[in-house]
């Protein structure tokens, strides 16, 4: 029997250690994106325009959500 997920083509059984390592790494990445993104947003808002700041803030939120989606997909609700 193949070991790939029929919906996404990636391995079905990611080991617990690998999942934990990726999960922790992506959570840290999301945190870094939020912190740095908020700083860049504030600078862009003050120096250039509110529009640019709001656009960057939208990108920060979307990027953070994307990282956390990948994290949750890898963890797949394991204990």
């Amino acid at each position, binding site marked *: 029997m*193949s070991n*790939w*997920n*029929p*919906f*996404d*083509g*990636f391995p*079905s*059984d990611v080991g617990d250690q690998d999942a934990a390592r990726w999960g922790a790494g992506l959570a840290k990445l999301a945190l870094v994106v939020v912190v740095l993104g908020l700083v860049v947003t504030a600078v862009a808002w003050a120096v250039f325009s*509110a*529009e*640019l700041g*709001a*656009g960057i*803030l*939208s*990108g920060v*939120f*979307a990027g953070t*959500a*994307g990282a956390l*989606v*990948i994290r*949750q*997909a*890898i963890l*797949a*609700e*394991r204990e």
Partner: protein
Amino acid sequence: MPAQGVTYNTTMALVAGAVPLLLLVFARVAQRPGRATIEGWAWMFGALGLYLFITGTHMTLTWPLQHVDGASHCCAVDNITFGEPAMYFGVLLLFGAFALVRAERALLDRGIPFDVVAVVRPFLYAGAFGGLGLFMIAVSGLQFGMWRPPPDEPIAGMLAGTGLEPIYIAFAYGFTGLAAVTAPFAPEGRVVARIAAVSLFVAGMLWLFVALTVFYGHIGFTDV
């Protein structure tokens, strides 16, 4: 009343972004050995599908978005390009969710293993037809000059005249269409499955980002 009419397509775009991203997580959860029930996931998709179905149907039948003077192909035509796909995929999502709940309960009660692929695949086939429609929306939108925002709309207005927003939105429709067209055939081929998954992620990210920008932009654009 704002110039462009009733613009509840902000949350529609947010849901259009959330659904592909959540489908990716669901695909992993549903196939995990020894997983718990997926009923919560099904009801969640049902709720999001209901939202798209109601708003998409209202938009399709009543055309709440109005033409804005000075903006090319904005925004009455969005009643077609937003409303109809939202209605179609919304109702598929809603009924797919009901099917998941009912199938899981019925099969587990009889001690039969629950095959998620067998339950969702008919809905994926139907979704593939909708994906073809999304390809045509992307092509026609570029051809007929859609998705060129009014210059005074916050954020989107920064791109006015650059041609970037039409390309961005066409890619959003295109990747969503690619995911919809490839998803039914994913279980037969790993490469196709990966194309479907990556397209789903890219489409979700594109819709999510544009949804977040229009929450700011539409509020700033609404002078009432």
